[in-house]
């Protein structure tokens, strides 16, 4: 029989409802699994006592027939979500030991619906990274390995802990955030499903900010259906976030089985980038073929400003980050390193508290906003954002329902492999995902196969604003055709 932690979230939910097992047993199976998986460094903090206490409440609810939508389902929480009374670090030394007296809107919604917290998941520092190598608490190791090699592989980033934990069965699903691809890229690298919903679908309240106009929370899980279930709980209006929309949350799970008949799927020619590996191209063609076979119409489309999305992102995101991270000054919380005066205290605190990548981005952001450069960089990048958004609006107006692209330009790489002096090499990981953030659209990554080295590859679907339902329906068609990804056996246990 499958271990309880190897069930999908939907299976576990149904099993709990049928009283096949208890929430306590389910939690214990996960606690045992994650204790054995510390080598992966996916969890920054395990909260087994809290998990068992929550599971007991769930069992009582289920016994009384008062089970809530996520009753008793154990989840991992990216350590970017503030959790009341549970240390929240954002993967940074500067927040070491920080204990919020508040609960993020997204995690609050999950607990409201009965979910169980297993602990806090590792991530790139302040969500800035594509490999989880920038975490101040050590990199996450992917449960995946190349065929015939035990070289450690990156899980992607920044939600690398979330993706690795889901792939290694250390939780049924996990929260994640996506500013330039931080849900979809690690999902693709680990053979999991991850959706970044439309900007404004989930409240940002209580989630440590990286780049306010781009950040969105979303789930990573092992199936499309599991993602739909989780997003249905995470999303929803919040009066405390001005950018969070007042739209009702659709029944995402129902949309999963809608099918793709009659949908028009766009294939953007600009995504065929120079030097794209042949197997990525093949996978992309295969995906289109699967959707055609399932009844969708495939249409080539043009998104002419695609190539400017990544450079524009590397102006907008650091600019916002440089300002958002100004609050980490050693005055009210977190690390403080003394200096000869107040300025010295600031400078020493921030030099010691932030890692190299974060400092680099703060500095670039500071530079592009500074006097004399603001118009040339920031304003121009925001204009280009308008052009990128117009590209999408034009194809959607022409009848395209969703857009199919590769999720990443390659499969996962080995730890340390992209540690060159040129940060842009790492940034190129987000070349397919970042346009979606720039335009505020929903995007989902779904596993579609393995590359020649045995590492997973994913496809990305991009939807109309607030039409995550079509993404779930279409992603399900790919999952059905590709077959559920069989995840690696637990070499770490």
């Amino acid at each position, binding site marked *: 029989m499958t271990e309880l932690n190897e069930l999908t979230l939907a299976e576990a939910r149904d099993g709990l409802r049928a009283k096949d097992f208890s929430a306590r047993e389910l939690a214990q199976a996960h606690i045992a699994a994650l204790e054995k998986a510390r080598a992966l460094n996916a969890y920054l903090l395990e909260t087994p006592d809290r998990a068992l206490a929550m599971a007991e409440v769930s069992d009582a609810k289920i016994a009384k027939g008062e089970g809530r939508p996520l009753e008793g389902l154990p989840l991992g929480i990216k350590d970017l979500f503030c959790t009341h009374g549970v240390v929240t670090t954002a993967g940074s030394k500067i927040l070491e030991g920080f204990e919020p007296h508040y609960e993020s809107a997204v995690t609050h919604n999950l607990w409201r619906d009965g979910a169980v917290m297993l602990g806090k998941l590792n991530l790139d520092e302040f969500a800035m990274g594509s490999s989880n190598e920038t975490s101040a608490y050590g990199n996450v190791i992917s449960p995946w390995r190349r065929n015939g090699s035990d070289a450690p592989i990156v899980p992607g980033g920044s939600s690398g802990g979330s993706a690795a934990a889901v792939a290694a069965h250390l939780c049924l699903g996990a929260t994640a955030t996506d500013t330039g691809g931080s849900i979809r890229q690690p999902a693709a690298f680990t053979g999991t499903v991850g959706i970044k919903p439309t900007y404004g679908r989930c409240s940002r309240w209580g989630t440590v900010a990286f780049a306010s106009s781009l950040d969105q929370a979303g789930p990573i899980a092992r199936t499309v259906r599991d993602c739909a279930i989780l997003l249905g709980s995470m999303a929803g209006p919040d009066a405390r976030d001005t950018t969070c929309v007042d739209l009702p949350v659709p029944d995402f799970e129902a949309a999963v089985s809608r099918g793709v008949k009659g949908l028009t799927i766009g294939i953007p020619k600009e995504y065929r980038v120079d030097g794209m590996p042949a197997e990525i191209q093949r996978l992309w063609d295969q995906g289109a073929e699967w959707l055609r076979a399932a009844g969708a119409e495939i249409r080539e489309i043009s998104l002419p400003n695609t190539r400017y999305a990544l450079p524009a992102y590397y*102006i907008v995101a650091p600019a916002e980050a440089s300002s958002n991270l100004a609050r980490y000054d050693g005055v*009210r919380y977190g690390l403080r390193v*003394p200096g000869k005066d107040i300025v010295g205290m600031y400078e020493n605190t921030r*030099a010691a508290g932030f890692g190299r990548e974060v400092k*680099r981005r703060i500095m670039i952001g500071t530079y592009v906003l500074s006097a004399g450069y603001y118009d040339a960089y920031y304003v121009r990048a925001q*204009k280009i954002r*308008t052009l990128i958004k117009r590209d999408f609006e034009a194809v959607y107006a022409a009848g395209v329902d969703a857009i199919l692209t590769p999720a990443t330009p390659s499969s996962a790489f080995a730890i340390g492999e992209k540690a060159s002096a040129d940060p842009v090499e790492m940034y190129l990981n987000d070349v397919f995902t970042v346009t979606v953030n720039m335009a505020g659209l929903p995007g989902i990554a779904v596993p579609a196969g393995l590359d020649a080295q045995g590492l997973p590859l994913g496809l990305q679907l991009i939807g109309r604003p607030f039409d995550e339902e079509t993404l779930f329906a279409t992603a399900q068609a790919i999952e059905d055709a590709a077959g559920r990804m069989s995840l690696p056996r637990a070499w770490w246990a």
Partner: protein
Amino acid sequence: MSVDAQTVRRIAHLARIAVSEADVAPLQGELNAILAFVEQLGAVDVANVEPMTSVTPMAMKKRADVITDGDRAQEVVANAPETEDHYFIVPKVVE
């Protein structure tokens, strides 16, 4: 555009990040690599294009003028590196 060592020092100071002399040159190289990468944006014709201010067109939500918070000084200072009588303590600031 590219930055020189002096600019690196100026930005670091604006951002309140101490940078050792040994770190200036590598940082300069990294920043210039990024600046070179974004240089291509100069080729885009952005005449008559409005800069994006909000990605989702919607009216800004507002609060009613009611008191819903406060009276939690202990929580406000709970994580502070140094505090006294619910004040945050910092090294002396000279006005």
